[in-house]
């Protein structure tokens, strides 16, 4: 196990991809890395300053001495790597959030309660605004087609066998009123119950 904190973030991204889970926002490590960047950056600035000749003198050589070159390149690469790790971590989380929202059929109110403790404040803002802009985009099609519906599997048939997991009560469908009682099984049109399936009231029985 590496003690490098940036490695921990990368590992987290990897695990999160493999298990398809969103982990809690790792504020502690992110802060550590940002501090590290600041420290290294300060070193870098200092070493460059010490190498630069006083401004009233004419520069004797166009390149600084090798020792300074080496140190500053090293610092520079370190900073670049840390910044990249931070961006990778955050971008990964935002992509993941996006995917989760689409799986929840763009319903941010349905998604948020479960994941809210995992998010940083700016991620919360992001997912809310994202829901808003995709809603605007969805409005382009909504009269005819709801693009929020799932595209994972092409429809195999019109009807779907469902079991009621949580009590729903009476629902008006195209074919008439259906009274969904807990534990009951019904054969209904997929389009009619799409939302209930997503919200976890019903589940598909094969």
């Amino acid at each position: 196990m590496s003690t490098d904190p940036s490695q921990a973030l990368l590992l987290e991204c990897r695990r999160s991809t493999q298990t398809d889970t969103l982990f809690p926002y790792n504020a502690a490590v992110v802060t550590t890395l940002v501090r590290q960047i600041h420290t290294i950056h300060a070193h870098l600035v200092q070493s460059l300053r010490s190498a630069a000749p006083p401004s009233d003198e004419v520069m004797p050589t166009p390149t600084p001495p090798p020792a300074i070159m080496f140190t500053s390149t090293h610092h520079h690469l370190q900073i670049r790597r840390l910044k990249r790790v931070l961006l990778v971590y955050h971008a990964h989380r935002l992509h993941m959030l996006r995917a989760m929202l689409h799986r929840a059929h763009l319903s941010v109110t349905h998604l948020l309660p479960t994941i809210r403790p995992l998010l940083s404040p700016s991620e919360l803002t992001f997912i809310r605004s994202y829901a808003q802009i995709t809603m605007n985009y969805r409005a382009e099609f909504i009269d005819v087609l709801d693009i929020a519906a799932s595209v994972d599997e092409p429809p195999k048939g019109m009807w779907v066998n469902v079991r009621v997991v949580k009590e729903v009560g009476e629902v008006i469908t195209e074919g008439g009123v259906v009274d969904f009682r807990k534990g009951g099984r019904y054969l209904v049109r997929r389009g009619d119950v799409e939302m209930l399936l997503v919200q976890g009231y019903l589940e598909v029985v094969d």
Partner: protein
Amino acid sequence: MADWNAASGPSWSNGQSHLPSPSPEPTEDTFPDDLDNERTDPISQLVKAWTIERCSPDIMAFEGELVGKIMGYLDAQAKLIGVLKVDGASEEDHEKIGLVQMEMDRVGWLLRSYIATRQEKLMRYTSYINSTPAIQTRLSVAEQTLIESYQQIFEESLIRDVVGNLPEELQALDEVLPDGRSMVSQPDLDKAVFIRAKQDCGPVLMPDGSSLEIKKRGIHLISYRVVEQLVLRGEVELA
């Protein structure tokens, strides 16, 4: 209604397995295909647009007219069914309505999948698209609005959590490193794709300098960049 049902057929019922069977040297007329009498009805075209969009690593031009036609079709069918249902249809009519509804579900799914595939690419390459006018022309107006706002909220979030806390000269989000790597992700045009030639295309120049003759009905696994122009001209199809 009847025309539409007849025309859509089973051509996309196996929509998930879109890899061609391996047959490196196809001979003339060994298997029936539709190269010579291509279907031109909107649903077949949508299937084609969807396949290309899913197989191509690049963002293709938005098929605005086609999407409009399909939307019009779905809308008309839905209204027709509404009328038929009110009129108290017979048993047989109910069955027919069921079939039409299923057809609509499927076409709707196809269209949603097409839109979702594009949306996924747009989100992944937002920053690249917004800085490349040539690609922007391939987007619909709604898509352009979408990714403009998306880039804004995406970068806002990164600025608040990361680069906003860094020293000033490290705050850029679109740096290009000296070795040519860029912070902005771009579509990987060198990705390998399966193609099937719809006509004789003549030799194409491979990256290593050799040339490859693409014959009608030939199936190749090839870098997208090499055949990009052929795909755009519709001389080969992605599969």
